[in-house]
């Protein structure tokens, strides 16, 4: 795993500037949470890192080098928000994962690798031949995570991976993310609009507003002593925050 650096990255769509000289570092083996509202540029930053969006200014570096965005082996992988559209409905779980394995493996080796990946995300190896339609949202998101790990990436970007899931499943996926990070030493850029979720998985938080990073620091600092007005506004807006305070007072 390794360090991802956004160095004054600017992205424009036509005349509108979506990312305005954003600089952000995801240190080796850490989880950096990226929060902000829709339209703030969170997803664009993710897409820029994996080459889905062209960058107009600045550089994106992985361990000091530009990220390779051609060829079979990609160092950065991504997990998407909607587990219902991120898996091809006509491909079995095994095929979807196999596609993301860059090496040419023998049939037996490939099968073993798929099983290893499924075990990593706590899915039964018997699911290899199932279609996404036979899986629940949470299970699909596990498959998407297994696929993201199949290329042995140096960094994973998770874009709102729990927001389409039921609360009962969200917890399990978050537990899995933390476990992956601990066991594999995964570097992770974790994008979410939910501060409570980010607080739970990330060691650092960056707050994006209108295409600029307005606040960045260790999670506890940012959430307990927010410096920027927008961060405070975000914190105040969390539903149930009234309740949380009463619980703490009790």
């Amino acid at each position, binding site marked *: 795993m390794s360090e991802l650096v956004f160095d004054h990255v600017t992205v424009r769509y036509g005349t509108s500037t979506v990312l305005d000289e954003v600089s952000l570092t995801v240190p080796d083996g850490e989880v950096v949470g990226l929060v902000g509202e829709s339209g703030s540029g969170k997803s664009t930053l993710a897409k820029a890192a994996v080459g889905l969006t062209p960058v107009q200014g600045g550089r994106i570096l992985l361990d000091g080098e530009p990220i390779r965005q051609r060829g079979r082996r990609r160092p950065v992988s991504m997990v998407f928000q909607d587990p219902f559209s991120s898996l091809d409905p006509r491909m079995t779980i095994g095929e979807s994962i196999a596609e993301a394995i860059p090496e040419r493996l023998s049939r037996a080796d490939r099968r073993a690798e798929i099983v290893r990946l499924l075990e990593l995300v706590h899915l039964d190896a018997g699911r290899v031949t199932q279609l996404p339609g036979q899986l629940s949202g949470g299970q699909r998101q596990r498959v998407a995570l297994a696929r993201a790990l199949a290329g042995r990436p140096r960094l994973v970007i998770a874009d709102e991976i729990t927001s389409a899931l039921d609360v*009962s499943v969200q917890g399990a996926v978050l537990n899995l993310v933390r476990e992956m990070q601990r066991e594999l030493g995964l570097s992770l850029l974790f994008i979410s609009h939910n501060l409570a979720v980010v607080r739970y998985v990330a060691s650092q938080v960056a707050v994006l507003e209108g295409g600029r990073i307005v606040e960045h620091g260790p999670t506890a600092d940012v959430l307990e002593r927010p410096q920027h007005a927008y961060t405070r*506004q975000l914190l105040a807006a969390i539903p149930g925050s009234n309740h949380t305070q009463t619980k703490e007072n009790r």
Partner: protein
Amino acid sequence: MTNRWSRVLKTPVGIAGVGLLTLVLLLAVFAPILWGDKANAVDTDNLLAGPSADHWLGTDNLGRDLFYRVLVATRLSVSLALLATALGTVVGVLLGTAPLLLGRRAGRLVTALVNLLVAFPGLLLVLFFAVVFGVGAKGAVLAIGLAGAPAFARLCQTLVAGVAELEYVAAARIAGVGRFRILLRHVLPNVAEPLVVNVTISAGGVLLSFAGLSFLGLGVQPPSYDWGRLMQDGLAGIYTHPLAALAPGIMVIVAGLAFNLTGEAVAGAFGMSAVTRFGQALQVDTGETPASDLRHDADADRDLVLDVRDLRVSFPGAAGPVHPVRGVSFGVAAGEAVGVVGESGSGKSLTALSIARLVEEPGLVDARHLTFCGTDLLAESDTDQLLGTSLAVVFQDPMTSFNPAMRIGAQLAEVGRHHQGLDRKEASDRAVDRLRAVRVREPERRARQYPFEFSGGMRQRAMIGMGLMGSPRLIIADEPTTALDVTVQSQVLALLQDVRREEGAALLLISHDVSVVSDVCDRVLVMYAGRIVEDLPTADLHTRAQHPYTRALVAAVPDMATALDAPLATIPGHPVDPAQMPVGCAYAARCPLATAVCREQDPALVADTSGRRVACWHAGEPIEMVTAEEATA
């Protein structure tokens, strides 16, 4: 897949189409083998004869039997039509998928070219190409095939663009999968069905065009003959023996119908996957109703805006009717805010929709008692006026709940004119006033704007404003803030609170998010597998919930005080599929407290003295939290 294809054969259109098509194809294959000689046999005694016992349709100018010639012509007519269709399809798919393969810039050029070609009338293209490629069968195939390509390319482009934007294609791209492989593995298989349907239908049209070209003398040339050619030959004698020209014409119609009907049937079968045999929908289950609590009936003396007892919703399913809502009973008092929480598929949205009478066919709503503002919604036939003025409904996606082509103010005013009988001026004044009431800044200017000019939060405000055009006694809000950002969410929730206070309306707030509900509501109904499993005051949600499901839901959501060193609580297993409702308590399979009794008998929703209700055999018993390692969700 397979059952969709077999469903084609279950419709009358499908049977007719496939039957005709089989007949036509059999003729195309066997007619020339069986009757080729007879069709070419020259009978000089019977030149241009009318129908007779020997020659059913008469003969042509060389005395050849027309009946056999029409049958034998099937092969050439159908195969040329299929060839032209195939050509059009291949060129169309190549042009349609080119933008994906060529990348942004070159792709744009191809798209522009296709757009240009689509603009030309098809017939003009056919004639143009027919002239370019010369007269004859080969030229006609090229002409008709190429003329059909642009329309097909456009369809293909649209379908491909739809799939290419999906996340699984992006995921494959990130994984380093090549463009060509993405096209073959991810895109084409997922657009194949509509393409196939379209090809089948267009084959019928191509057949007709081909007959037309041959009829004009631009297609098949003698001594070969197809139906169009036969029609032209027969035209000269149309007044003496019309069958010579009509018979090939009839065959064109039959074959064209065969392709079109088959295509329609296939399209129908693929489009109607959600609706199964409708007959089953009518068999309403009159079986035993889950026990409704007695306590609730005592609520009757309260001033109830909404009184629901034993509400059930059923849909036809593959194996008999499915009941996503099974006996839901609750009341909402005037001005009260009641939350409904549950996972997706718990029946919470359907419950709301059935109160607003918005459950669509083939869904069936039934209840022992369903009154709104004292009016029985099940007995009254005309409840539109009451629901239109006294009930406001706010949906999750404010973009789709407005007509994108109408100004916001006009859409609000329409409600006023329709339901309150206001005139144009009064209605638009009230619309502006209501926009002001939901804290839309500069309401006069905003009223003249279109929905796309509103942000998500503003649209949701306008939606609430629309509900306030009347004087609502109840606002039903179905996940009103799920599509919104946290900051906007808190504003919309605050607005709902204000509106409730100002208008004295009750609120039924449906949400999957326990924290949203606990911010706004006085009371929470927890739903699981189509039933209410717990009904308790919001204040008790985090501390005194009795049902193990409620407790698990609350514990599974991380908040700003969640301990960071322990894994989050999870609920193992899956929500119940309404089509496979287990015996006993639906939650038993996921419940840490479940015992034998839970798997045998469904617990009734029982009220205690304070009015809380819970449906559990082990309500309130202590639970050891399940950790992630044990959970396999």
